C-alpha cells in the first residue's frame, strides 16, 4: 500500500550568500545550508531529522514551511507545489502547517496571557471569536494537560515543561495536518522530556497529525519516529525506518554519530570502551 504522502520534498536547496564590501555588497561565497534534500512523509506518520549543529536540519524545516524561500527544489503539500507561492497564496495553507519551537522561554510573548497566546491563531484565521473562542482555548489547554484556570496567567508563571505545553496547544489550535517540532524537548529537564514526548504521541493518535520531528537526541527521535533521516553538511546521508537506521546503520557518518551516544548502562559502556580501545 502506498499512501499519498502529506508532504514531499524533492532536491531542496537553500544557499545563504556570504557578502563582502562596504558600499556595494559583492557575493563572495555561499553557505550550502541545505544541499539537495529529498524526503516524503506519509499522513499520520513521523519523520525524525537528526544531525549535529550546523547540519541544516532547522533550515530544512523553515524552508519546508516556506518561512524561508528555497534556492531551488520542490515542496509538495497534499500533492500541490508550495515552493514559490506568494505570501497571500500561502495564507490559507499556514493553518495546515504549524511549528513547535525549542525554547519555551523565547517562543511565547511574555506580555500576553496564555489564553490569548493559544487563542490568537484561531482569531487570526477567523475560526472563532468571543465566548466560542474562550471555550475552544479552554478545551485546548485541557487537551495538552494544563488546567482551564491557567487561561489568564502569563508565561513567566509557568515552568519550562508547562510552557512547552502552551506552545503545543498553540500549534494544534487550528487542527493542522502537519506539525514541525524543532528540538521540542531539548531545553527541558529529563523527567519532563518523557511527558512531552508522550503528549506528542497521544496528540498524533487523537488528531491524526503528521510530524517532522527534529532533535539532536537520537534516542528521543528514535522513540517517536517511524522513519529517520540523518543529516550532515546539508545533505541527508541516510534514511530508513527508525529501528533500521539505529540498529543497522549503513552510512559511516551515521555509525560515528550513533557510536558517540553515551550508553546509560555502566557495564555496557565499559564493554564498548574496551572494544573501542582494542580496535585502536
Amino acid at each position, binding site marked *: 500500500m502506498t499512501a499519498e504522502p502529506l508532504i514531499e520534498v524533492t532536491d531542496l536547496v537553500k544557499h545563504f550568500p556570504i557578502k563582502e564590501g562596504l558600499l556595494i555588497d559583492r557575493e563572495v561565497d555561499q553557505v550550502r545550508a541545505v544541499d539537495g534534500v529529498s524526503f516524503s512523509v506519509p499522513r499520520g506518520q513521523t519523520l525524525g531529522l537528526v544531525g549535529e*549543529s550546523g547540519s541544516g536540519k532547522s533550515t530544512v524545516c523553515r524552508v519546508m514551511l516556506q518561512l524561508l524561500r528555497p534556492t531551488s527544489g520542490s515542496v509538495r503539500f497534499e500533492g500541490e507545489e508550495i515552493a514559490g507561492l506568494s505570501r497571500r497564496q500561502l495564507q490559507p495553507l499556514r493553518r495546515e502547517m504549524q511549528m513547535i519551537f525549542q525554547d519555551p522561554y523565547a517562543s511565547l510573548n511574555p506580555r500576553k496571557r496564555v489564553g490569548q497566546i493559544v487563542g490568537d491563531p484561531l482569531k487570526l484565521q477567523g475560526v472563532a471569536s468571543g465566548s466560542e473562542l474562550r471555550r475552544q482555548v479552554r478545551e485546548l489547554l485541557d487537551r495538552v494537560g494544563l488546567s482551564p484556570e491557567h487561561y489568564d496567567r502569563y508565561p513567566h508563571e509557568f515552568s519550562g515543561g508547562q510552557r512547552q505545553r502552551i506552545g503545543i496547544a498553540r500549534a494544534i489550535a487550528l487542527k493542522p495536518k502537519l506539525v514541525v517540532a524543532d528540538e521540542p524537548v531539548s531545553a527541558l529537564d529529563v523527567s519532563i522530556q518523557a511527558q512531552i514526548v508522550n503528549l506528542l504521541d497521544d496528540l498524533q493518535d487523537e488528531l491524526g497529525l503528521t510530524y517532522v520531528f527534529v532533535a539532536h537526541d537520537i534516542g528521543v527521535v528514535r522513540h517517536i519516529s517511524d522513519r529517520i533521516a540523518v543529516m550532515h553538511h546539508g545533505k541527508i546521508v541516510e534514511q530508513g525506518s527508525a529501528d533500521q537506521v539505529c540498529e543497522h546503520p549503513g552510512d559511516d557518518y551515521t555509525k560515528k554519530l550513533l*557510536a558517540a551516544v553515551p550508553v546509560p548502562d555502566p557495564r555496557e559502556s565499559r564493554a564498548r570502551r574496551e572494544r573501542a580501545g582494542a580496535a585502536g
Partner: protein
Amino acid sequence: MSPGALLSARDLRVGFTTEGGLLQAVDGVSFDLTAGEVLAIVGESGSGKSVTAQTILGLTRSPNAEIGGSVKLGEVELLDASDSALRKVRGERIGMVFQDPMTSFNPVYRLGSQIVEAIRAHRGDVSKAEGRARAVELLDSVGIPDAERRVDDYPHEFSGGMRQRAMIAMALALEPEVLIADEPTTALDVTIQAQVLRLLEKLNRERGVATILITHDLGVVAEVADRVMVMYAGRVVEEGTLDEIFYDPQHPYTWGLLGSLTRLDRPRPKRLPQISGAPPSLLSLPRGCSFRPRCPHEFAKCEELPALEARLPDSPSHCDRCWLDPEGKREKRQVGDGQIGLEAPA
C-alpha cells in the same frame, strides 16, 4: 573528614533570602572526594547541584546568601576563607569548567593570553614567554591541533568543542588537585561530547585529578563516574557507587530518572515511562520527602523526612532517603521491558 579525602563537605547548606522568603537551595549535602575519583552530582534544574559546586569555590557569597556547614580542602576550611585566600585556591588547587564555553572566555582577548594571565596571577615569577609556552603545551595536551598557531586565536575562532577543551586546558594550567566540571558537555554535539569525556577520563587516570562532575545526563554519568549523588530539591536523595545507582537504585526518583532514559541498544517501548508532575518550588516544599507528591509509592510515613542512610545490610556506602522497605522495592521499581538494566549487580 575521612582519611584520604582531598575535598570534604559536611552538612553544606546554602539559602538565599528572597522576597518570597528563604529559599533553601542546598539542604545538608555531605561528601568526601578522594584523589583520582570522579564524583557525579546528578539532578534537574533547581536540584541544587550547581549551587553546591559554586559554593565550594565561594562563588555564591553575597549579602542575601546564608551558607552553613563545612567544606574542607585538606586542612583549609573554604567556607570561612578570606576572599584573597579563596582566590589562591581557585585555579591553583581547584579548577572549574563551566557549561557555556562561549561566555566563559573574554571575547576581546586572545585565548592564549587569557591562559597566560591565569598562570601569572598565581605564579608571579613565570615570564610571559614561559607562560605562552605553557599555554601552547596545555592546548596541545587537550587535543587542539596546531596549538602553536591557535594559541593566538580569539575565542570566536574556536568551535564549541575546541573552546570547551581550551576551558579545560585553562582549568588545568596550575595543576589543581580538584576539577569541578559543571555540565561540561551539555552545549556540545555528541561526537564532540565523546571527545571531551575521553579527555576528562584521561586527565583523571593520568594525573589523578579528583573530579566533581555535575550533569543531568545519566549517559554521561555511566561513561565517566565512579560514584554518584542524586539530588532533588536541594537534598541528596540517593548516593552510591556507579553500579549501585544503575543496577540497584533505591529511591523512586532515581527509578524515574533511569526509567525515562531512551536506549538505542534496546527495543523501544510503546510509551516512555515518565515521572508525573514537576519539581516543587523551593519556597514551598512539601512536608517530609520532597518527592512525595510525584511518587507513585507514597504512604503515610512519607510526611516525615527520611534521613540519608544506608538501608541495605551489605552495601554500607549506598545511602538513600526513602521509607519504603528495601525488600519490597525490587518489585516496585520495575519500569517496563527493555528500559534499564534493573537487574542486581553481578
